[in-house]
């Protein structure tokens, strides 16, 4: 993504909109494909956020365990 990364909430909100639009149908093939590609992109952004959050949690947990151990 060239532009500044969306926040998790923004990405998830847009993803939901994309899915709804796809499910509602009525879009042309070209539009559908563009929507799907956008959806994949947004899902990847969301996943990156969640992975990052989990990593930070794990790191904090390890640090705490190290402190408690040392």
């Amino acid at each position, binding site marked *: 993504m060239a532009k500044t990364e969306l926040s998790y909430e923004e990405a998830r909100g847009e993803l939901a909109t994309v899915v709804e639009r796809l499910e509602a149908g009525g879009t042309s*093939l070209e539009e559908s494909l563009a929507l799907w590609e956008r959806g994949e992109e947004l899902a990847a952004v969301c996943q990156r956020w969640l992975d990052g959050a989990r990593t930070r949690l794990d790191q904090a*947990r390890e640090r705490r365990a190290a402190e408690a151990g040392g």
Partner: protein
Amino acid sequence: MTEETPRSSPENPWPVRVVSQKIGSWIARLGWIWVDGQVAQITRRPGSNVVFITLRDPSADLSLSVTTNRDVLDLGAPALADGARILVHAKPEFYPARGSLSLRADEVRQVGLGELLARLEQLKKLLAAEGLFDPRRKRRLPFLPGRIGLITGRASAAERDVLMNTGRRWPAVDFRVINVAVQGTSAVPQMIDAISVLDRDPTIDVIVLARGGGSTEDLLPFSDEALCRAVFACTTPVVSAIGHETDAPLVDYVADVRASTPTDVAKRIVPDLAEEIRVIAQARARMWRTVSGLVDREQHRLDSLCSRPVLARPEVIVDTRAAEVGSLTARAEVVFGHRLDGADRDIAHTTARLRALSPQATLDRGYAIVHRAADGQIVRTPDAVAAGDALRIRLAAGDVAASVTEPAAREPAPGAGKTVATDPAAASEPAVNEAVPADTSETGAGEPAPSEAAVAIPADPIAGERSDATAEPAGTTTETTPANGRPRRSAARSKR
């Protein structure tokens, strides 16, 4: 006398007696006054009627000497002791012998406890009216003070209580203790000093004023107006811990926090370490649960969004359209097939109709059609041809050429035409130019076949249509022919 004395100078100094006399006469001019104070010391000289009292200001480190005699004292304040509050009616006097100033009292009244309390009540109202007790003026104590200033009696139970209980709750606590007199005449000035010292100390985050229980009189310094004002003016939060639960000296109302007893102070000024550790651990655990729960929940939401068919199986986007195209193609094939079948049936039907309407059937029955060879016109009347005209006769299986041998003139009736010879051999016979019934033509079957027979089956529908039109008159003339009464001779030959 005063006026007569010249100005003093190093060259002309005043003798002590002059100075003493001048001061004495100045002081003698002062009048009688009522003075309120506290007895710091009372001296009764044995064998002397004179009594010396050191009268002290309860709030400040100031004192004056009071001189009176036993009679006066016995009248207004018998059994007067140190620390008592007294009201004195006196006049300032100068004693030249010692160069000292004292108040000569002619009336001394001891102020009773009831009156003291009444005064406190009045003071309380005054301070309240001034806003010294206003809860909005109270400062909040820091959650965990860096250093605590403690003002209390030396080696007192109060001091021990505060230090021990506070250390028990928060071991790392740090105190700066200032020991003061907590009762008696010097208590208030010392406490005010201590407050001022601690307030100026930047490491002190809270000041505790502590004193154990005592009599109402003992606790009076803690209701002192000057002390109350000092506490109010103090920028560092002040905690009061005076006496027992039931004691309520005025400083309790002014202090930012009132602890009921010195033991209670600890709870007010420091958090309980064990409790805090427990709370933090709890908060931390809840935080972990919340945050990881949040991440898990969001992951679930994301997964459910991503598992929706439109995202999970994007080929559906293409597949549905492919299916649409397929079904449309199939429908088109079906529809086109139907159309073709219909067209086939139409053609067959039309062909059948065509065949049914074609003159061929009529020709097959033995009728013939006669055309003028020159222009191809169908010959319907004998007048239409002249002798020698070339004719063409269409038979069921082909054409024959013929020529008119005899123009018709005998028959006036329409339809009666010239006699046609189909054959050189039949030239003498009256010819019938119209088709004759098939059964009649059967009779001529034995006759020689036309030499110029040619197959002339209509090749196309248009020709068929035309033949169709010519068939009608043929049918009509069929009935007229017998009416002619002529020998039945077939002009048209059949190959059969």
